[in-house]
């Protein structure tokens, strides 16, 4: 399914498949690339099928670095499993998660 994109100036970084310990290293490279790109970062997590602590860590670090650089980080879409974890960990507010984006 295609995630709806509204008013996004930069193309969103779409992370599909798993966002877990097994993919953490490659995700880290993608995020570093995005961070070095110099634009606001839009994350499309609408097609993430597995999301674990390793994934949470990546997002937390990304958020912190974006804040430090004064860069905007927006999650434009998120799948159910990502939403479940962020809700469990009480991180929805931190990432300004859209209420019903999917």
């Amino acid at each position, binding site marked *: 399914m295609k995630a709806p994109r509204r008013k996004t100036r930069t193309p969103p970084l779409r992370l599909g498949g798993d966002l877990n*310990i097994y993919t*953490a*290293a490659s*995700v*880290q490279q993608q*995020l*570093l690339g995005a*961070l070095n790109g110099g634009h606001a970062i839009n994350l499309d997590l609408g097609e993430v099928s597995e999301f*674990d*602590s*390793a994934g*949470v*860590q*990546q997002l*937390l*670090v*990304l958020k*912190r*670095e974006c804040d430090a650089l004064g860069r905007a980080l927006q999650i434009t879409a998120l799948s159910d499993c990502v939403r479940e*974890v962020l809700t*469990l*960990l*009480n*991180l929805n507010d931190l990432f300004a998660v859209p209420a019903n984006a999917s």
Partner: protein
Amino acid sequence: MDLNPALQTFIAECGELLEQMEQSLLQLENDSGNRDLLDAVFRAAHTIKGSAGVFGFDSIVSFTHQVETLLDRLRNGELALSENLSALLLRCGDHMAALIGPATSDAPAPAGLGENDAALSAELAVFIDGGTPPAQAAAAAPAEHGNGYWHLSLRFGPEVLRNGMDPLSFLRYLSTLGELVQITTLGERLPALAEMDPEACYLGFEIDLHSDADRASIDGVFDFVRDDCEIDIRPAVDAVTALPADEPVAEPGFNELPLGELLVAAGAVSQVAVDAALHQQQAARQQKTQDNRLIRVDADKLDELITLVGELVIAGSGIHARAQQSGLVEIMESAMTLARLVEEVRDSALGLRMVQIGPTFQRFQRVVRDVSREIGKDIELDITGADTELDKSVVERIGDPLMHLVRNAMDHGIETSAARRACGKPERARVKLNAYHDSGSIVIEVSDDGAGLNTEKIRAKAIARGLLSATATPSAQEIQQLIFEPGFSTADAVSNLSGRGVGMDVVRRNIETLRGTTEIDSTAGVGTTVRIRLPLTLAIIDGFLVGLGAARYVLPLDVVVECMELSGADQRAVSERGFLNIRGEALPVLRLRTAFDFDDTGSTAFDPGETGRRRENIVVVRFGALKAGLVVDELLGELQTVIKPLGKLFSFLQGISGSTILGSGDVALILDVPGLIKRAEAHKAHGLSVA
């Protein structure tokens, strides 16, 4: 990312817990009001669910959850434990055991597992929905305790993810214990993105939990991650939850100042309450250290240790022998000290392998329960001597023979209820399992209070099968032993369980491979007892060395009763009659020279009739109730013996059960005492009939 060790622990623990659950359920059938037992069942199910949740085995979690719900209703008194319910729970336990296999390996699920799951779930649902709706019950429960607030500080170690565990799983499981009032995720240990190790874990959590669970159960959530995680669980008061959620974290130095002092300072709680909480914590820790006193060890490591100790024993006796030859007192003294230490090391190494037979016996509670229902007899199992210890390898292999014997006793031994009533016996029959130590052996008894063996029937059948000649007049005892012969069954009707004539001879063979013996003792109308006699250990024994010419033989020291020199008159008695009068007792005697066909022609004048005779000695040995004398040339004293099994090539050898290596490097054969005693008995009978 090796999941294996944790997974192995999970599988082993689930096995134990399911066994516990089954035991408690069976006990509950006789003691239905026992709250402790019900709690034990609940705890077992709960722990399995939790551990399975940590590993993400959803099939086990979802099924066990239903079982747990049902058990919870039982605990709350909303349901009563009926016979049907108890049977259902037992089947649920079986099903949980069946689920573990496919979940923890790549093996495909056996056919029918899914249907079974659905069927049991449906049955559970009937009971669960029978009372008040579960939601209501859950809501009512927390109200009973007002003060179930806890504060948890978790700092996961870097290796957690790599060890295959996900901190999220623990939080999810924690949420099943109660309400997660507040979670604060701590990311301050995370390094910069470019420097971060993507597979290391940097997360920490501060959690406020509202739960009626006690500290141990909350603590139990983290069992699998304990080594890799700083865990701090403190009882909190309601006031804590009223504090701004992020304050404890934001407060600098929060970690330096104990929460208790913080709270006292803030006037939130009194010093007394803090002391009480600390005391409680202390107690929990002590409990913890006691738990830690048991460790799991890979059985292969133990086997390796035993093998090494065996080599050490041989090397030690080599030194001992050389020291004696040298005649140097200091060396001999050192060798003695060494020998004593080696003996102690050997005993404790063997002790490591000793396990109680209790759990093996307990498994039969279920068998007896199920089978007695199946065949419509009222039978109870009586267990004694459960704390008798024996070698682990023996325990592992005794299960099948015992199963045969118990089923046999239930099916053939015990009469129908009607028949029992008719002969004035209590309707409820008993099968008894008993174990005890006896002169270096362990004895396991399976007895029943049934009809006993019908010796006439056995005799007729034995004659028909050609096992016995029609004119022979064996004793009742001898006839009874015939049921261990291959292809023998006295059951008139072949039942589902036994009676196909493939029972008792298999039992005997199994026991014989363990160097054990079987005997049966039966009284018509009173009952039957099958007695299995097993060596304590299969590896190392204290031996008694004897010599025949240049050859050396070892007897297990435990069977040796006494030794004496054989006088000339006695020698004559032995060769003429095959038995000896020792303190008024007729002792069957076997001359090992004759038994092993020693060539005497070359030796110096062996002639029992002459005075220039060879000195001979007699060793009196005992096995069970039987005693016999073995005539040997020399008595050479005690030694530690590592038993080396003989190869297949020598399996036909009679009177020899194994070999060992002496300190001198020579090989000595280990005598098979039960076999020799039997031969001596036969010899004596022959001698008596001639005399």
